[in-house]
């Protein structure tokens, strides 16, 4: 008797659940579907923005995101609970796409790698021959920098340096090469210069590794996500982070926000050469595809992405923001190189990781 009652109750409950699911997928327009994504942390603010949420809501979606280092997304994160992964580079996305057998990917926006610094540091490095005037913007000469770094040059050893006589190595602060995309992009740049071209052979890998490893290992502890060192740059200033590797978008985003976090003495340098970080979305379930399609095709989202500092697939969006906000960033960057193939980049990163 009791057992029968129990089963009856379970059936009633089950019917209730099924009804709810059916209704949820069906015609009720007010019901939003939740889509979960794991994203490179530099896109966190974009997805958290109410205007962005509103656009997604118009299309029936609520997008929930967890930030993580882009390589962490590709290697360590358990992706099963997510509908999409949105790392900050093509190589990381390539790996996820292969691992998860995703049919396609979306690359709705990109951002060049930059070095953010302060006026006194830029002046010092101009004297040291590392910072040079470029076509409408200041460049960070990677070759000259590598030469200083190879010698283990400390800041206090730069001739005539009274503005920043710190007793630590002259190094660009990056993220951890074991976890983060921006560090991998940095490796793409520095290995290109050390090799005199894109690294594409085992010989070349072996040849450039000592020099490029040093750029990471000599920093000691590094943070795993790009927001970390950039926030240090903004709040702790020159003492902690005289030179930080960042996405151009991080800097532009702050200027557009006008929250006075970018002070007048803060400067952007464009590495010569630099690479583009191509933010690439990998759908893991059908709802992830919908997010990718909207980001790629929706003009409203494109405009919003540009206000977060991203260069969009339609360059007009970014150009408008630059004009409106009177930004001192170049429309086009001339000296851009391609990152090495995914396997090459991974092998070099592994080789560096082993030395920790």
């Amino acid at each position, binding site marked *: 008797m009791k057992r029968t009652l129990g089963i009856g109750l379970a059936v009633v409950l089950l019917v209730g659940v099924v009804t709810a699911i059916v209704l949820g997928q069906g015609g009720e327009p007010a019901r939003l579907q939740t889509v979960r994504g794991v994203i490179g942390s530099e896109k966190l603010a974009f997805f958290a923005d109410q205007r962005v949420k509103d656009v997604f809501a118009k299309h029936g979606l609520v997008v929930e995101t967890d930030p993580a280092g882009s390589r962490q997304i590709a290697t*360590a994160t358990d992706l099963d609970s997510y509908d999409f992964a949105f790392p900050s580079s093509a190589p990381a996305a390539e790996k996820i796409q292969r691992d998860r057998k995703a049919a396609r990917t979306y690359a709705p926006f990109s951002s060049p790698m930059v070095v953010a610094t302060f006026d006194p540091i830029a002046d010092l490095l101009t004297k040291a021959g590392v910072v040079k005037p470029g076509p409408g913007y200041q460049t960070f000469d990677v070759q000259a920098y590598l030469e200083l770094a190879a010698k283990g040059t400390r800041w206090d050893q730069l001739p005539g340096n009274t503005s920043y006589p710190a007793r630590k190595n002259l190094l660009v602060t990056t993220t951890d090469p074991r976890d983060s995309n921006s560090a991998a992009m940095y490796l793409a740049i520095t290995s290109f210069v050390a090799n005199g071209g894109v690294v594409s052979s085992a010989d070349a890998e072996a040849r450039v590794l000592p020099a490029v490893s040093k750029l990471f290992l000599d920093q*000691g*502890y590094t*943070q795993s996500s790009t927001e970390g060192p950039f926030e240090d740059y903004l709040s702790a200033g020159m*003492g*902690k982070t005289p030179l930080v590797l960042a996405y151009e978008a991080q800097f532009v985003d702050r200027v557009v926000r006008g929250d*006075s976090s970018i002070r007048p003495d803060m400067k952007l340098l464009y590495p010569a050469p630099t690479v583009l970080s191509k933010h690439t979305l990998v759908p893991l379930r059908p709802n992830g595809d919908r997010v990718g399609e909207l980001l790629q095709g929706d003009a409203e989202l494109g405009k919003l992405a540009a206000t977060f500092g991203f260069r969009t697939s339609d360059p007009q969006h970014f150009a408008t923001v630059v004009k409106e906000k009177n930004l001192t960033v170049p429309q086009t960057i001339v000296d851009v190189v391609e990152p090495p193939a995914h396997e090459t980049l991974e092998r070099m990163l592994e080789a560096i990781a082993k030395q920790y």
Partner: protein
Amino acid sequence: MIRRLLPAAAALALLAGCSDSPDPARPVGDPTPGTLRVLAGSELADLQPILDEAANATGVSVKFDFTGTIEGAEKVASGEAEQGFDAVWFSSNRYLELVPDAQKRLGTPTKVMSSPVVLGLPAAKVTELGWDSKRVGWAEIAEAAGAQKFTYGMTDPSASNSGFSALVGVAAALSGSGSALDAAKVNAVAPQLKQFFSAQKLSAGSSGWLTEAFQRRARGEDPGARVDGLINYESVLLSSPEPLTLVYPSDGVVTADYPLTLLTSASGEAREAHQKLSEHLKSPDVQRKIMETTHRRPVVPQVQLDGKFAAKDLVELPFPGSQSAVDGLITTYFDQLRRPSRTLYVLDTSGSMQGDRIDGLRQAVTGLTGADQSLAGRFSRFHGREQVTLLPFSSSARPALKYEVPQDDPQPVLDQIRTTATNLDASGGTAIYSSLRGGYDVLRQQIDADPDRFTSIVLMTDGENTGSEDVTDFQLFHQGLPQDLKGIPIFPVLFGESATAEMEQVAKMSGGKVFDARSRSLSAAFKEIRGYQ
């Protein structure tokens, strides 16, 4: 059917009964909406008023359970933290991120505030050293320390982040290479590091107790020798009732940045709570309030540093990039760099200790001989150069068993201590105070032969004194001791039916501290005491 229901009902009743005493894996309870369960460093306790306001403003309240940096890292790495917590909040994630099993469990961090670890000295001392008119680097500080021109207190680097940061900072700065530390670089500057640590006269397992002991000594309330200054967080030094002048080494500092970090295992609700709380804590008004009330630096650029922060742009020293480098540095500190310890264990082996209790005692001592392979356990073993004396007692004191752990090959001596501990047997009465008094005879001899050591006494007893000398007799004896013996801190361990009030009295008269092993193992208490030895 009815019968099958019975066990379930019994299980329910059992569960209900259990809820009175919290599950040890969930010391702050089960997941609850609107509550963030946080495993934290004890220095976060002063944020409570800010968090109370945050609870009002956001509906998210924080429940803390406090632990040390390394122990905390261990709990995160083993997955234990995930069982009972949604987030961790230590003064820094640096060590955690170097432990791969811990790193992969860390989710979103929000850096809430920052505070560098610096040296605080009385203004007169700073002037005397000539440091009021110029900024000095760690090398000059180490040199003055080596010449005993000042003394200081610092926490145990394996137990507390401020000591840990100071150790990394001074080692990085002295190595002078400007890049991150490795073993070779540490060895190259070992002589200067030894000089620097020769002036450390006070150690503690927590920043809070260190500051209190420093102040009690300064006011003459503790019999221990006065210490000139402290190495601690800027925030702690700025709030010291004994005014201190802060010395910011020109070559750099290591800074705590207090990341409130979600665990990847956290539920959606906890995630949301974390985000809400983070946004609130980083709003300019709250940041300003944190700066004003806790003397920590804001992390949002919109809030300007106020006048009490004498140095603005602090150079941050590089931090080691691997766990092995950090662990190696801490081990070197204990075995080679710091002033060696002299520790006397006065151990109750009376009849009431029979059974589980004597077993627990054997394990507690054995754990310190290298048997405890946990992270925290490895650092709390008896260190190279340490003098260890075991003084078991029952109706009277038994012969003292003295050991000195060699710096280079410690294992044979550690094995001897282990054998002795394993052979401890329980019988007879409990003559606490005559035995404790006897311990001073041992220490007197050792101090006469070699005065420059951290000396301390651990007193472990499980019950009332049955000897003819009582605590009043001991107090009289203690008052008559010469300064160097009187200032030796006694760390009584509460166990079984310990006389709590008497133990408090013994701790107080000697400038020590009581440790409670009634609700945890003796091993855990003995391990914690290591931070104070």
